């Protein structure tokens, strides 16, 4: 489980409900602060988990952001631009999760059919998964990054909501 559930925590429910009920300017303020505070942290977390890999950063890091809202959302792998131009390029948005949760076994032989130059078909045996990351059900970049930051982010988000509401109403009364 990546995120704490609002159903299991009174405080989270409070934050979510209060956020829902609060007036628009304060809601906007909360959203702005959430974006401003969490965006750099989230991007850094992704970049850290991507390590030095340019591919990982291109796939997961590009367009990584915080979608503020109720609840705020950690967005990654959002780029729709193919890594390489052409019709068959790897599109992070579409194919990113295959890189996050690779299921292949590098070095495994795969047999498949292909067309011969003279029009017939024949079978070939190739290591089609060479160079791909090995199977990792827990996720490679995004999910570990989420696990890194989640407790702090939830705490921060609740804090931003509570503080803003508290300040707003204290000023009002």
């Amino acid at each position, binding site marked *: 489980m*990546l*995120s704490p*559930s*609002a*159903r*299991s925590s*009174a*405080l*989270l429910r*409070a934050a*979510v*409900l*209060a956020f*829902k*009920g*609060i*007036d*628009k*300017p*304060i*809601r906007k*303020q909360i959203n702005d*602060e959430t974006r*401003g*505070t969490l965006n750099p942290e989230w991007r850094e977390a992704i970049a850290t988990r991507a390590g030095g890999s340019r591919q990982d950063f291109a796939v997961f890091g*590009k*367009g990584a952001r915080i*979608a503020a809202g*109720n609840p705020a*959302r*950690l*967005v*990654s792998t959002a*780029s729709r*631009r193919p890594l390489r131009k052409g019709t068959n390029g790897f599109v992070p*948005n*579409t194919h*990113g*999760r295959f890189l*996050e949760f690779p299921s292949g076994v590098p070095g495994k032989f795969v047999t498949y059919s292909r067309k011969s130059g003279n029009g017939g078909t024949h079978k070939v045996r190739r290591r089609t998964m060479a160079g791909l990351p090995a199977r990792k059900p827990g996720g490679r970049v995004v*999910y570990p990054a989420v696990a890194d930051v*989640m*407790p*702090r*982010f*939830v*705490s*921060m988000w*609740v*804090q931003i909501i509570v*503080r*803003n*509401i*508290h300040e*707003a*109403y*204290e*000023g*009002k*009364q």
Partner: protein
Amino acid sequence: MAINVDLVADASEAIRESGKLGDALETVADQLDDIGDQGKTVDDKVSEAFRGMEDGAKDAGRTVEDKVGDAFRSVETDAKDAGRTVESKVGDAFRAVAADAKAAGKTIGQDVKDGTDKAGDGMGELRDEAAGTAREAAASFGSLEDGLGALQEVAANALVGFGPAGMVAGLAAAAGIGLAMTAMQDAATTATEAKQKAVDMVDAIAEAGGNLADVDLADRIKSWGREVLDDNWMTFWADESSTKFQETAKDAEAFGVKATDAIRAASGSAEDSRKFLEETADDWQTLNDRVEQGTRVSTDGAIAFDDGAKAAQRQRDALSDLRGQAEENIATTENAVQIYELETDAIGDTAAATEAATEALRDRAAALEESATSAMDADAAELDYMETLQQSTKDIQSNGRTVDINTEAGRANRLTLLEMAGSARKLIDAQIAQGDSTATVTKRTQAARDSFINAATSAGMTKDAARRLADQYGLIPGNVDTHVKAHNVANTEREINNVARARTVPVHISPSGAQNVANYITGMNGQKVYVDVVPRGGGRGLN
């Protein structure tokens, strides 16, 4: 599908299940109170710490007990009150939202539109206030990460399973646990007042440039001696307050040394104190012996002193005070030196770290300024573009459907289109400078291109012609990088090639001018001229 993770799971379910917003919030406020009670575990720990110190004080001295105990108790109450105030304020804030929601009769799912109705001066004020808390929040984020390691650990561990402890941790973070921490620190300071002297001494050493020998003793002796002793537990018999100078002088007189020596021993350098202790060591022994000799214990257990012993005892008491002060002074100085050394070691590291952090901040500020400038440029360009777009549409409408450059309206329309394209290019360039993703720029270019083509067709161009014109004007989406980078390179390359290129000059010669041409060519004698000659004129050769 992008990989998205909600910060809080089941948020919409929780909202849906909660039914009426007002009621739900009220329930939550009650629950928060309960959590506040659970939160006492944190409070309790603080209290325990206080109580521990209090017990220590009790053991140390019976008379001190009350006063110090009181001090602790008041700090403890303060801390508790502070914590309670914040907690209750947060609870109140939630209740206030609940009251608002109830008054408006809102239910979940119903848009809270009247929030905007309230928008006015009041709301602006609220926003400003909230903006202030953003900085605070950011600061507490930093401290949550760096300083309150223990709290973060609790939060991290608890939030994984997110049991009740998680709520407490969250609430504690939200309610500003920092207050309790500060209170604890205050208490610690009170409890270690003796250390404070050493700390003052550290300051003095630091002022003297780190050399104990250079410490301004006169200043130190003055501030020590002028300390007014209240009518406290030590001098409950005194009718009026006194200074340490006076007390020490009294003791010195009773023992029989010069007051200045005694004062220097009590507050001067450690050397002075040691000297005093050495010089009085024999006297101390003699007085002790004399008191012992002159003391008789009668058979019924009563203690009797002879006259000499009585005098010796008075002297001994005075000397005991003086020697005690001298010993304390040595301890303080040694403590201070130790603290000073530790401190300078630590500060050495910190200074380097601070410098690095400042440097990083400066870099960041510069980067921010740069990006802000680009962002402002981009915004300005966008505004310009939108204005041009609006104006262009109006112009074309008033000019009518014509792009014929022979008519005034046609020329006006062509100019309008040129302006549109120019403005769009500026916007795109500004966006590239701002560092927008290629996807954004492409999208923007595509939109600009569409608007341009629409405007051109509404001005009377065919779609194909409009598209060609858009291409010519550089409104080609999806190719931004290569266009910007390779365009100029290609141009420059072409220009360079053009200079060095062999040129072909077509020369048309009519039979009648043949002689002139022959003369002309002869006139170029000595120069290298390649001439392609295509004979014309009924098949007759020219040579």
